[in-house]
């Protein structure tokens, strides 16, 4: 079949859509997968649901969020007057006394928006909750599909703004982690199980934040020339020293005869850092000529 061929005109048979469209091989089943394809979306949906229920309860509880020196990340920074006093902690009464609800609600909108519009979470909940698709090559139950082309899902495109908001929040949580090295009388030099939990938490939060696709785009992958090249032409003031240009993620592969080589995350260092970059690039260019 030559590559110049035009597709056949579509014949629309009412009631037959998707894999049951009139032009396709007549197979009654929605899918023929024999593995446990439902396990991953079911586990994701159950896990996310449990977290949503728990976090909603904790966010509205407005209680039990501070045990010196530890503050729950849900209530940090605490922006209303009704926060419990935390010595040296992130209490900023920006919202004053009129705010009567849980102070967690003021700050949680940012991490919530960040996670809701996150590319990875989108995959998880589109598959797990919306079954669009439930799993690969398993027909989805919806008759119409417009994806992220229309309101409200077109709003997913503002993910980068939530990234901008998430960075200062992560900064404050880092500050909380430092404060966790005090004891309950606020004397420095303490370390308890809570401190370890804080350390693990903040490490994961920064890893999550920096692996954000918007972050990758902003630090240089969004450019059509590598950050170093931009830097050399004098317009790359914001270029970072290293840019995750490509990355590999682990995952089951359906081609069984290949070795699972793709398991390392590759943060590719740009040839040079911003400073001193033009010189080195000039040298390289000379070498290339």
């Amino acid at each position: 079949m030559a590559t110049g061929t035009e597709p056949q005109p579509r014949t629309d048979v009412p009631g037959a859509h998707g894999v049951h469209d009139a032009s396709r091989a007549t197979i009654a089943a929605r899918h023929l997968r024999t593995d446990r394809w439902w396990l991953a979306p079911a586990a994701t949906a159950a896990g996310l649901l449990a977290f949503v229920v728990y976090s909603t309860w904790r966010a509205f509880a407005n209680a039990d969020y501070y045990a010196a020196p530890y503050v729950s990340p849900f209530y940090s920074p605490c922006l209303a007057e009704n926060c419990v006093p935390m010595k040296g902690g992130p209490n900023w009464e920006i919202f004053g006394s009129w705010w009567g609800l849980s102070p967690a609600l003021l700050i949680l909108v940012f991490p919530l928006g960040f996670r809701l519009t996150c590319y990875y979470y989108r995959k998880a909940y589109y598959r797990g909750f919306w079954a669009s698709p439930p799993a690969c090559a398993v027909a989805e139950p919806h008759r119409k599909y417009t994806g992220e082309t229309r309101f409200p899902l077109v709003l997913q495109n503002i993910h980068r703004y939530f990234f901008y908001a998430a960075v200062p929040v992560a900064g404050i949580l880092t500050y909380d982690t430092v404060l966790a090295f005090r004891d309950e009388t606020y004397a420095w030099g303490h370390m308890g199980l809570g401190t370890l939990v804080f350390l693990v938490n903040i490490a994961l939060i920064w890893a999550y934040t920096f692996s954000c696709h918007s972050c990758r785009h902003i630090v240089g992958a969004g450019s059509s020339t590598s950050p170093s090249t931009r830097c050399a032409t004098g317009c790359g003031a914001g270029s970072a020293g290293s840019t995750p240009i490509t990355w590999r993620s682990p995952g089951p592969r359906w081609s069984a005869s290949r070795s699972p080589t793709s398991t390392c995350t590759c943060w590719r260092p740009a040839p040079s850092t911003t400073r001193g970059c033009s010189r080195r690039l000039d040298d390289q260019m000379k070498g290339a000529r």
Partner: protein
Amino acid sequence: MSGYTAAFEVWRGDADGGQLEDFEVEVNEGEVVLDIIHRLQATRVPDLAVRWNCKAGKCGSCSAEINGRPRLMCMTRMSVFSREETVTVTPLRAFPVVRDLVTDVSFNYAKAREVPAFVPPPGVAAGDYRMQQIDVERPQEFRKCIECFLCQNTCHVVRDHEENKESFAGPRFLMRIAELDMHPLDAAAGAGVDRRKTAQDEHGLGYCNITKCCTEVCPENIQITDNALIPLKERAADRKYDPLVRLGNKIFRRPE
């Protein structure tokens, strides 16, 4: 391991209809599904239609669905199935069937033609192109594509919604747009083609909900979603949804 007899179900038919037919067929050590299909052809059903060329996972011809999963028949070893299991082989289920395991993939060729080609930079002779190695490596991953169209077949946007075929280019060709947009020497902008904007407006990038089935089935292990589609979505956001970037472009007089 010695030979054994496996149960196969193979779809046979054409555009007017068809059904799964049962076969018992010999399997030997080291064989792949395509070997078994060839054995069926040689011993039982000489008119069984199947498309293949290289038997090495490089030509992209032998795409089919095996136990409901889109894969290359020549790269699916029989050893991944248990001996008791019935192995079901059907044609790709997103494209019109021609006969037996052969489908009409011309949808993909039409979509390929819709993507404007690389525009050579003005004033640079073909032998004088200079690029940073890092800029060469990034799109190089996408050039591993063997055009098996498994990703196009699995993407639910068109697999489950025939009517979207008109407006959606599919992962393989959105990846092509990403590749060209990442090319530092592509002069499409000068020729009046805004690849980032048209990806969204004309090639249906917004339909993709990044559920990664294209990546999951790609026999070349190309990280289609992470390295092409999501970066392209971010690039389209620059053009269409990010007021700050647009303001910055105005202030610094960068070309929009």
